[in-house]
């Protein structure tokens, strides 16, 4: 199938939902017990929308990103759930089928592009590598002219000069490398782009530039994007929806404007309160306590443990309003209010 045909078939099968994640679980088996790094996460995202998943280090956000790509490595394993993209549950596929889905349907913009590019390979070959592997195997090799054209187009889309094609990663700045990573991720017009802290190593001005490029490409492809990060500012600027993770669980998910204006879960509330702003000086309020340890975490509310309370039973996932859900715990609901 050529790229063009594929793109049209993609929009034809477009049911509105880009990705549907149901009760996804990623467990790490350790000598001390099971670590539930992702503990029953569910969310769905419409085609063409942007969602951010935020949380502290250890909240499971990067583990979740890897699981969406089915790149979870031992001792981690996907312990259950569904990841449905284009009507297909990715977790049902065998290894080879899944390999072909990556880049084609779901693509990753990795954290720290500096380490994800091959240092001894020219940029043009890295851009073509995925394309070769996925569509032009065997007989119909691309002609030299086609190659040059494709590379130039990809580079152009991420605002890089054609000359970059002949360069090696060490000759590029951090921002340029991240752009190359974005070019690779979008080279096959995926339905879903998973961006794992794509700009955490960049300066603010460069970050803004790179994010604008990523956003423009995503809109052009009408792809859904899942942005993993800890920078609430970036989330507020970039996404349509936000999911807040705590101790491997999604505690709140909703439209960015609603969640920032009236967060419903106490953890989200404190997270937003603890952010310094440029508009007014205020007393610093950190979030008290320490993030929960995921080892043998009890069923009940994880945030209660942080503030020295307890809820023994599993807490429900409830709808507040359209698109806005929280893990509702009666014990800590009004904490920090």
């Amino acid at each position: 199938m050529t790229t063009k045909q594929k793109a049209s078939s993609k929009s034809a099968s477009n049911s509105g939902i880009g990705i549907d994640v149901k009760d996804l679980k990623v467990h790490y088996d350790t000598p001390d017990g099971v670590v539930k790094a992702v503990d029953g996460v569910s969310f769905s995202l419409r085609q063409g929308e942007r969602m951010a998943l935020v949380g502290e280090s250890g909240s499971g956000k990067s583990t979740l990103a890897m699981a969406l790509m089915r790149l979870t490595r031992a001792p981690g394993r996907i312990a259950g759930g569904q990841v449905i993209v284009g009507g297909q549950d990715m977790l049902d596929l065998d290894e080879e089928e899944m390999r072909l889905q990556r880049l084609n349907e779901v693509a990753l913009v990795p954290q720290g592009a500096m380490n994800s590019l091959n240092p001894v390979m020219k940029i043009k070959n890295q851009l073509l590598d995925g394309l070769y592997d996925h569509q032009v195997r065997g007989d119909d090799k691309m002609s030299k002219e086609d190659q040059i054209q494709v590379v130039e187009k990809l580079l152009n889309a991420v605002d890089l000069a054609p000359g970059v094609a002949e360069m090696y990663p060490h000759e590029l700045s951090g921002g340029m490398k991240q752009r190359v990573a974005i070019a690779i991720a979008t080279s096959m017009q995926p339905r879903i782009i998973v961006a794992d802290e794509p700009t955490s190593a960049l300066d603010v001005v460069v970050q803004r530039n790179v994010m604008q490029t990523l956003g423009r490409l995503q809109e052009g492809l009408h792809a859904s994007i899942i942005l993993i990060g800890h920078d609430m500012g970036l989330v507020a600027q970039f996404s349509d929806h936000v999911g807040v993770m705590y101790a491997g669980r999604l505690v709140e998910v909703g439209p960015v404007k609603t969640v920032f204006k009236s967060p419903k879960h106490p953890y989200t509330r404190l997270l937003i309160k603890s952010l310094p702003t440029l508009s007014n000086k205020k007393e610093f309020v950190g979030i008290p306590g320490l993030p929960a340890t995921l080892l043998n975490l009890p069923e009940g509310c994880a945030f209660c443990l942080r503030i020295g309370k307890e809820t023994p039973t599993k807490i429900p996932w409830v709808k507040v309003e359209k698109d806005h859900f929280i893990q509702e715990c009666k014990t800590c609901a009004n904490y920090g209010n």
Partner: protein
Amino acid sequence: MPSVLEAKNVTKVFGGGFLSREEENVAVNDISMSLDQKNPKIIAVAGESGSGKTTLARLLLGIASPTSGSVEYDGKDLTEISRSERREFRREVQPIFQDPYGSYNPFYKVDHVLFSPVNNFKMAESRDEAVHMVNQALEMVGLVPAETLGRLPHQLSGGQRQRVMVARALLLKPRVILADEPVSAVDASLRATILDAVSRLNKELGIAVVYVTHDLTTAYQISDEIMILYKGNLVEAGDVETVIKKPKHPYTQLLIDSIPEADPNKKWGKLDMNKTQEKIVTAPSVGWRK
């Protein structure tokens, strides 16, 4: 006006030189700043990577020496002070670095980084007094001594490790604390507690603070004055409220415009990148230049 620590037209050039094939790199270009003795403030030194902010911090700490200009401690050039004066300087000007883990020996308990400076500088008369001082310093930065002492560095969280470093600096009763990106390796939710501790040291104990950072938001929150560095040059300096709210230099404007504010209703990136870049090259620096 007496100043504890003062940089006078410091310039630091790396590379270049007689037989070098590398180009000269002016990391810090003719920058002056002073930390007032009577009215200790928090001064933020802000800039992106390559702005020269860490080099400036190293010059102020006497870890690097300026190519031209001078750094003066109590009015005396750092390169000319005696051994005993240097020792006093090492006590009175305390650094806090970016990676709190790097400052620990992983085989020693955290007690080591707290008690050894007390012993080295003979800050306490007796063991009991030393323990008392350490406890007090830990409480000052919001840590519970019983939960902190006796542990190995990896058993503490990043935020706790960095707060122990603030406590360590505090133990030596310094006049200046120079914190180079103290919170960039720490989770956002824990940043507030560390910066709050630093800010209290300034307000309650009168310690002057140089806060080196790339993050204008936290700089705005805790400092009194701010210096914006760009490619080794001081482009704008002044009262933090004025610089952040009414930035005059195009680079400062671009920087502030690029900060993703945690408010979906305030959109970032209103300035045109290319036009602003052009302006930055030609614009004169704004604010105090001593």
